[in-house]
């Protein structure tokens, strides 16, 4: 079982979350070319190592989280709220 340490809810099983994808900056819709959009939507780095990802805690706090996860070992070294930057230490 893989545990994700949610900054709001504490450690929860990964089945409570939805994997959104690799976290990366969204291109500016006003200036991005179709090629840039295609690259943003469909081309992923998929590293074997540390990756910054977005996860959605659908069965808990319903917040989007930014997670630094090692894709080979599933070790997690940092989790914060993607919108507010709240970490486990700062959560109420």
């Amino acid at each position, binding site marked *: 079982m893989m545990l994700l340490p949610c900054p*709001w*809810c504490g450690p*929860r*099983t990964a089945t*409570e979350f939805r994997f959104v994808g690799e976290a990366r900056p969204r291109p500016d819709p006003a200036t991005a070319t179709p090629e840039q959009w295609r690259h943003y939507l469909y081309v992923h780095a998929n590293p074997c190592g540390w990756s910054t990802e977005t996860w959605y805690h659908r*069965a808990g*706090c*319903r917040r989007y989280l930014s997670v630094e996860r090692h894709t080979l070992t599933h070790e997690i070294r940092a989790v914060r709220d993607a919108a507010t930057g709240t970490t486990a230490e700062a959560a*109420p």
Partner: protein
Amino acid sequence: MSEQTAVARSPIAPAAPTVRHGWEVDATVTVGPLTLSDETPLAKVSVRAPFDGAARRALGVRYGRTGRVDLGGEGVLIAGAGPGEWLVLGAPGTGAALVASLEELLAGTGEFTSVLDLTHGRALVRLEGAAAPRVLAGVCAIDLADAVTPDGTALRTSVAAVVTDVVRDDRAGVRSYLLHGERSSGQYLADSLLEAGAGAGLEVTGFRGLG
């Protein structure tokens, strides 16, 4: 022509239906040590506001905890089951009055808040008894030990694969959990709990209220 009265129905079918407080409820009374009761008739009001602002201070309940307060002359249970989300439970038929009281309470906070009566859109059951943690542990991955989830804990998690607010609300020192979820999942949730508790002697009992 006979006079007709509207009756609200829970999503959980009662074994022995009777009408109380304008709701069809189960007339079954069980005195066993481990019971499951359908508490759907309780008024259920959702409040959303910034998780740690003036609204939270006005409600007096922080995220992850519960509190019993007097609101508009009614005793209610407030559960902070999500960051910036509160569930307010009151006596049957008080939903509109609760909404009015909460709106009045939050009006002076200056924050963007929303108050919504969810009574007829949600299901609510109470699992009570010393063996309740053992039953719940069969369908839920949360650590239910006193040190982790003491009395007064509110959280949202997956119960039998259904997103559920779990509120620990012990009564007279006896372990008791309120489980709140979408109306469409109510019957399934109750059936799943009864199946998980069959070996522990879980029995169905009628509506009891907040107590």
